[in-house]
């Protein structure tokens, strides 16, 4: 099969995109950990990491090295294959979601339109949900294969929790889908261009979905926190109850993979929140051509950062839910609210449509 130079060029671009996204993402994850430690420390009137490099900026490297060189302890009675599979699954799935997330607009290179996105899937959003829904396995299997009671509890809890909150998570975004009429993340962002016009006057409010879907956003964000197992929904690993939850028996780099996956998932849900409700990479753009390409990426990163900041802030403030309260909250409050939101949105969309 002969490849034309065009195909080769596009293939090269795709490879470059994958490598760049992976590198940026892994660095970002490392520094989110640093950010979390630093922010939570300041919330708690501590200094946080400050010994490794200026402001402790080299701390992520030190942590990574430490994880690498720690002894990998495998308990005797574990199911070896599954025990090994779970962290890899967890990390791989967390990374896979970034394949469809658009980081910015597009630019022209040698006559080709190049989009700042690895793959523009026309069912991009569903793809992300599909991949994250598989993420439950890594936790459930980790809990099961450890052959220990606390991890099993953690695994069971998180399976139940993630199934329950996935529903609310999925239903919360249906409203925005109905408004934009597409499942492609790029189309959804493009539908949020410009500003809101109310009765013919320009309100100068950006045309973001958050202004028409506030309920959807709130449900989405709460469910997202639960989906990523963060405080106040961090029951699967609630360390004061279940020691470490599903990763109690993991050590060394296998543990690091769970750890990185958790932070990668945080980034994913923050990205989706930005794309669906906050206009993605849209923001004031000015200056020369190269700035037209880079500024959107900056706006996107800034919005994602705000969400991550909120995540960390929550962690410094709130206690943890109890298992039954968590379930009651998910099924009896979030789910009905999400459903009502869909109902209301569909009526409005139908009414405007006619």
């Amino acid at each position, binding site marked *: 099969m002969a490849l034309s130079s065009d195909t080769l060029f596009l293939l090269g671009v795709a490879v470059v995109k994958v490598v760049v996204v992976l590198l940026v993402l892994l660095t970002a994850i490392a520094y989110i950990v640093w950010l979390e430690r630093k922010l939570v420390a300041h919330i708690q009137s501590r200094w946080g990491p400050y010994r490794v490099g200026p402001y402790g900026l080299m701390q992520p490297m030190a942590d990574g090295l430490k994880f690498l060189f720690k002894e990998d302890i495998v308990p005797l009675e574990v199911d070896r294959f599954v025990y090994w599979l779970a962290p890899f699954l967890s990390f791989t799935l967390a990374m896979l979601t970034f394949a469809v997330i658009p980081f910015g607009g597009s630019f022209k290179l040698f006559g080709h339109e190049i989009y700042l996105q690895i793959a523009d899937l026309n069912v991009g959003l569903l793809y992300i949900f599909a991949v994250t829904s598989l993420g439950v396995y890594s936790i459930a299997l980790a809990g099961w294969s450890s052959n220990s009671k606390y991890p099993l509890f953690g695994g069971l809890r998180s399976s139940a929790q993630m199934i329950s909150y996935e529903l609310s998570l999925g239903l919360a975004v249906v409203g925005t889908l109905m408004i934009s009429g597409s499942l492609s993340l790029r189309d959804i962002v493009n539908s949020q261009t410009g500003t809101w016009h109310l009765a013919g006057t320009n309100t100068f409010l950006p045309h973001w979905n958050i202004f028409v879907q506030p309920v959807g956003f709130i449900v989405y964000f709460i469910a997202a926190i639960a989906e990523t197992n963060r405080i106040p929904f961090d029951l699967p690993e609630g*360390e004061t109850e279940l020691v470490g939850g599903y990763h109690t028996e993991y050590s060394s780099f296998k543990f690091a993979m769970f750890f990185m996956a958790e932070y990668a998932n945080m980034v994913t849900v923050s990205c989706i929140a930005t794309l669906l409700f906050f206009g993605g990479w849209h923001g004031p753009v000015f200056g020369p051509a190269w700035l037209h390409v880079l500024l959107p990426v900056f706006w996107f990163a800034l919005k994602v950062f705000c969400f991550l900041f909120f995540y960390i802030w929550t962690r410094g403030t*709130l206690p943890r*839910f109890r298992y039954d309260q968590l379930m009651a909250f998910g099924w009896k409050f979030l789910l009905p609210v999400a459903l009502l939101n869909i109902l209301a949105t569909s009526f409005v969309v139908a009414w405007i449509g006619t």
Partner: protein
Amino acid sequence: MPEATYLDANELVINMGPQHPATHGVLRVKLRLDGERVLGTECIIGYLHRGVEKIAENRTYVQFAPYVDRMDYVAAVTNGMGYCEAVEKLMGVELPPRAQYTRMILAELQRIASHLLWLGTHALDIGAMTPVFYTFREREEILKIFENYCGARLTTHAFRIGGLQYDLYDGFEKDATKFCDYLLPKIDEYEELLSTNRIWMNRTKKVGVLSGKDAIALGVTGPVLRGSGVKWDIRKVQPYEAYDKVEFEIPTGQNGDTYDRYIVRIQEMRQSVRIIRQSVERLAPGPIFGKVGKVIKPPAAEVYHSIEAPKGELGYFVVSDGSTHPYRVRVRPPSFVNLEALDIMSRGHLVADIVAIIGTLDIVLGEVDR
């Protein structure tokens, strides 16, 4: 005897501790579970047993005093105070007022320190990370006062039988009042973080309910008893030192749940501040030692003396045979007795509530095991 569970599933026995982040030391609790619901608990203690009571028989009265600091090591001052008072009662020694008020100030500071530590760890158990750092920050100020007074921060050995080892340092009064002014707004801050927090209320209200009747039957004392609505405080009912000369209230709860015990302890810190303020005002120059000889040699008799330690009634039963060594010392530790209530409080609750209940009992394993 295993109780029937639904779908005839086996009940799960899970071992919490002795290495577990939420058992406050080396407590081991065997939980019998149906799913996440607790059918019963069994406490296994003794991992920190050092034979303190036996050691007492081989030490003189003076030599034994530092050992009691190691029982409830987060409230060493009150431990030492109870022991010294027991021996003083045995010998019939009256303390001069300066020594009495100094003891009260330090003991109340210790009560605040102990409650602060409890609040931080209890909140941490329930998942709130931040309060523990705040409370440690405030506790640090108390430890600084202790350090200035006697050189030690944790196991202070602050008092001697018959009075105080050291007179107060210059500026102690200022430090104590400054701390009181500093602490009150901080307590409001904790309450802001937790008291009206919906998650906190969900996690603590109606959890670990202990009725006043059960509490009395189990011999539970301290904030756990008062949280169940029983107005019982040794400082009021059998005043020691000069507690009958200061004004303070006994905060009580109504429902006997974890939230009420939390409120009781928060209020107790405020009352302690009141006591400290009044005691500081009454500190007058004077002797710091009662009439005791160089050698402590109580007459052959036996005595039971109890004080209100931060965790409840701390009692010392001392038997003397007329020599310099006690014949027998028996400690009634509040943590040990309060721990008895764990089973009755935790039945029917979830695993997550167990850590809340262990936290609300405020046990220190050094005291449970001795």
